[in-house]
């Protein structure tokens, strides 16, 4: 049985005086224990909202969540706020994008780590402190004892992110969600953090959902990749499959737009035309159609369905063919 089973998850935001906005539109995917799954897409594609929905962190008012999120078979969406609290931080941990703003500026790092331990493992403060120092050490923070009494503003960006990871993993959750954990960091640090994450999930056997817009990150880490567009999964495949042979024009576009060292000389980078703003609603066809190089008439009439084909899922009327040249 899958560790996490998300099926047909939808999130609709409703604000007074404004039309409802569908951020996530029937997303389904699952995560096996210890597996690392990537959610990839441009900003606004609904990947972060998906993660927040799983964690139950969406505002109670204004956001309508439907579908199902099963964790070890238990339906999370039907849990009460209290029950969800008990799971958060214990079964599911999360790491956010901006490490500075995600840490409480006026509380010492030590306390911010130990509070989780106290909450979920009922540790007394002193013991928790020892454990915390240990955790900081694990995430590669030098001289952890001293760090315990320091405040976020005294740490470097990388240190902060490590600290956050330490907190998220403090109670050995079975699932860790990392939402763009590296985007706010310098490139050199990014690599370190990714390496750290990889190492940790391997050692602790934690499953990881890696949310990113950066296929490079995915390439290094994920077993399976979900490509989201306009709130829907448009392609899912094992990592190698995807990179070797992207089928959806959007995925293809994403790949084509990353600079690659092994690219043949003279090959130009091909950016994707337009922006998310050009999307058409899914029920009128394919949201990506207006930006799609392969778009056909049907793309703007018939909503493409998700179909399985040799071990991958694809939502497209006119997939990219083997060794097709992408028209500029």
């Amino acid at each position, binding site marked *: 049985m899958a560790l996490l089973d998300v099926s047909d998850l939808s999130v609709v935001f409703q604000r007074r005086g404004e039309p409802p906005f569908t951020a996530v539109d029937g997303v389904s995917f699952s995560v096996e224990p210890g597996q690392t799954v990537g959610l990839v897409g441009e900003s606004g594609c609904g990947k972060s909202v998906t993660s927040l929905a799983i*964690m139950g*962190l969406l505002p109670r008012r204004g956001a309508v969540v439907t579908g199902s999120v099963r964790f070890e078979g238990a339906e999370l969406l039907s849990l009460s706020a209290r029950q*969800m*609290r*008990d*799971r*958060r*931080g*214990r079964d599911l*941990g*999360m790491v*956010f994008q*901006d490490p500075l*703003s*995600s*840490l*409480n*500026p*006026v*509380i*010492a790092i030590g*306390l911010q780590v130990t*509070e*989780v331990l106290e*909450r*979920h493992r009922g540790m007394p403060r002193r013991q928790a402190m020892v454990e915390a120092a240990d955790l900081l050490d694990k995430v590669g923070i030098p001289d952890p004892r001293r760090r315990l009494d320091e*405040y976020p*503003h*005294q740490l470097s960006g990388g240190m902060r992110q490590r600290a*956050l990871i330490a*907190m*998220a993993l403090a109670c050995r959750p079975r699932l860790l969600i990392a939402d763009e954990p590296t985007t706010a960091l310098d490139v050199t640090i990014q690599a370190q953090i990714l390496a750290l994450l990889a190492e940790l999930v391997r050692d602790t056997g934690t499953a990881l959902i890696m949310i990113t817009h950066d296929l490079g990150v995915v390439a290094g880490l994920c077993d399976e990749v979900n490509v989201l567009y306009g709130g829907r999964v448009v392609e899912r495949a094992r990592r190698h499959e995807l990179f070797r042979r992207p089928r959806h024009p959007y995925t293809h576009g994403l790949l084509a737009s990353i600079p690659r060292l092994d690219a043949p000389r003279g090959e130009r980078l091909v950016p994707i035309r337009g922006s998310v703003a050009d999307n058409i609603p899914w029920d009128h066809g394919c949201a990506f159609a207006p930006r799609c190089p392969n778009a056909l008439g049907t793309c703007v009439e018939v909503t493409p369905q998700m179909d399985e084909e040799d071990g991958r899922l694809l939502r497209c009327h006119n997939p990219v063919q083997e060794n097709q040249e992408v028209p500029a």
Partner: protein
Amino acid sequence: MLRYTLRRLLQLVGVVLVLSMLIFGWLRALPGGPVSALLGERGTEEARRELTAQLGLDQPIFVQYGKFLGRALSGDFGASTGVQPGDSAIEIFLQRFPATVELSVVAIVLAVLFGIPLGYLAARRRGGWLDNLGVVGSLVGVAVPVFFLAFLLKYLFAVQLGWLPASGRQTGGLDATRVTGFFVLDGLLTREWDAAADALAHLVLPAMALATIPFAVIFRITRAAVLDVLDEDYVRTAESKGLTTSVIRRRHVLRNAMLPVVTTIGLQTGALLAGAVLTEKVFAFPGLGEALALGFERRDYPVLQLMIIMAAMVYVLVNLVVDLSYAVIDPRVRTR
């Protein structure tokens, strides 16, 4: 931190010196003066001349200031001519300072006691009836002239209903023993409970009048700050850790929201004196404010000089304390 404190105190000295000069000059630039106050209808041109000479007011101003400064350094700020004629200005200040402090403390305590919790609740239930009521209420509170509110309170609770005393610090003839000059405290120390209660009763109305504006301000700041903090990322982080609501509220929300609130409280405390002048006048409450108003009406130079200088000093010191306390609760300031 220590160096910073010392620097601030040094600045204070400068401020006081300049201020004393300004006050001194200003008072003497005003028309009239103690001579009129002392002579009243009996004044004639030569009686005036004589008295002016006796008071040394006929000498060039810088000479007068020099003398004043000289005496002041030896702790002698002259004797009152109008407020409590004959008493030394210092004496008067020492009598009245506790009164105003007592009043201000009660007022600010009231403001904080109601302002912070209400502000917090308003923010939690943003757009709820409490929120709207509070926001509009705080706006009205600012729009009502302090002295008029004071009148209303006095008229209603003292005159019409007779629940509370209309003026003064303590009922006459109560024969209370004086120890510290803080009447409530004195009553407790000497176990003259009736005296303490009586003094407290005298504080209620003026304190209420005085507390409105600080309350309004503290309420709004608290509300705004809590709203700001609620959508901070670290609150979401705390949620993602599955912490209990009470921990999140106390440790992550309130704690951060308090930073601006503390500053505000300090500034308001400092600014209270302004309101005190009006409130004390209405309630004939023998504090600094009343002394200022009275001293001005009777052109009591020594008293006015000392009072205003002291007021400024207190104000500066309060602000210093605020900045320091800020450092205590905000590590980012402390450890920078």
